[in-house]
């Protein structure tokens, strides 16, 4: 009669079953909430032909992100709010592969990206949004007038797996995020069939998190892994500390 213990001993073991062709979403907005350890484990695990969903296409081949996985030939398609390098001078792995036609990309406005995943997690197959009406992204697509204003039809974006990074968890997978670490993470957890969480603090016993203060309910989380201290675990660096 105790809720399931979802704690896994390591990152690689927690994502071992991800098959080629899976659709995986990552949290993170800049570094806060980025599940760097799970992304590094996925690079090691080696699944291919992946569709990856995240805010950006990532950094260098050594930074945990889409770029690292693209550089290793694991990615078929990226679905992101940024698909071009922010600075034209930077030739990041994603840009290189994308311009060479070796990876596909779907560019989605950030709010639409979040809402499409939220829709998947809410049993809503499609919704209308004012975003991107009248732009290149709406060309050839269905729009409709409500109350005199034009809206674009957008479909839900379900995930097979979500990788999230949280501050605290209990053994059942109830999660709390700290500050802007929250970002896409709770939405990803709703959208995914299986959510894997990397967690910064010691995993808490059941009952240690106030039910009113849970940010992602454990019913949305399949697996939890505690992040070891650096250098075994991946942690963002304090600016100027290196």
């Amino acid at each position, binding site marked *: 009669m105790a809720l399931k213990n979802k704690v896994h001993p390591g990152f690689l073991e927690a994502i071992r079953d991800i098959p080629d062709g899976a659709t995986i979403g990552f949290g993170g907005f800049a570094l806060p909430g980025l599940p760097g350890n799970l992304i590094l484990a996925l690079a090691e695990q080696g699944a291919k032909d992946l569709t990856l969903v995240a805010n950006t296409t990532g950094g260098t081949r050594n930074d945990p992100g889409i770029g690292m996985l693209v550089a290793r030939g694991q990615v078929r398609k990226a679905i992101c709010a940024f698909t071009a390098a922010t600075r034209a001078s930077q030739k990041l792995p994603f840009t290189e592969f994308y311009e060479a036609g070796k990876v596909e990309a779907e560019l989605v406005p950030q709010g639409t990206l979040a809402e499409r995943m939220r829709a998947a997690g809410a*049993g809503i197959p499609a919704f209308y949004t004012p975003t991107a009406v009248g732009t290149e992204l709406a060309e050839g697509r269905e729009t409709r007038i409500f109350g005199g204003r034009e809206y674009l039809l957008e479909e839900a974006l379900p995930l097979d797996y979500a990788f999230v990074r949280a501050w605290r968890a209990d053994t059942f997978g109830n999660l709390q995020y700290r500050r802007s670490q929250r970002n896409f993470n709770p939405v990803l957890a709703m959208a995914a069939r299986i959510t894997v969480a990397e967690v910064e603090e010691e995993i808490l016993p059941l009952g240690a998190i106030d039910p009113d203060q*849970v940010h992602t309910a454990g*019913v949305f989380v399949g697996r939890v892994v505690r992040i070891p201290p650096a250098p075994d675990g991946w942690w963002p660096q304090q600016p100027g500390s290196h």
Partner: protein
Amino acid sequence: MSDSIGLTRQQMADRIAHLFEDGWIVNLGVGMPTLCSNTDIGETDIIYHSENGVIGYGPIAPAGGEDLHLVNAGGQYVTLRPGAAVVHHADSFAMIRAGRIDVTVLGAYEVACNGDFANWKVAGAKGGGIGGAMDLAVGAKNVFLILEHTTRNGAPRLVRECAIPATARGVVKKVMTNYGLFEPVGTAFRLLEIAPGIEVEQVRARTGAELVVADDLRQVG
């Protein structure tokens, strides 16, 4: 008059509760379904979900120990189990529609052998009471019903086609009545288990649709 023969209300709920599998997220409708939470199902771990956003509630609160901030979908003051979480109504129904609920147990006025059922509006009424039933009926992975086999006037509630407005179409997986446990199989109800002291011909006579009897028909209990 309604049949008082066959199973009691708690026995019906007990049988349904034993269908729950370990780790299931269960939503219980008002009335007989709430009796399922009284059933001792041993080590099987169930997470009770309530439409108002409570995930992981526990037994009814003891008299005098009610938390006035905490009710289940039936408005009963309940307790929380360790590991519970609270979400708002839109997120609660997001869970429901997205298929996160393993089973909803609902009451019903009528159920048809094609899996339709009706529980929100009586014949000729103005208005109705839907609550969360329509969302649960289309969203939950399994819809189980608990209802008396006949109306107060002895008319069958298990029918070929619903005569009153449906709650959802083709969704019912199991039907528990005081006569036994059934499943809708399209053009008939299959009788899976029969209540002690009831004969198959009695069931057939009080059922408003074709009845087929499972090869391995057993007694409920």
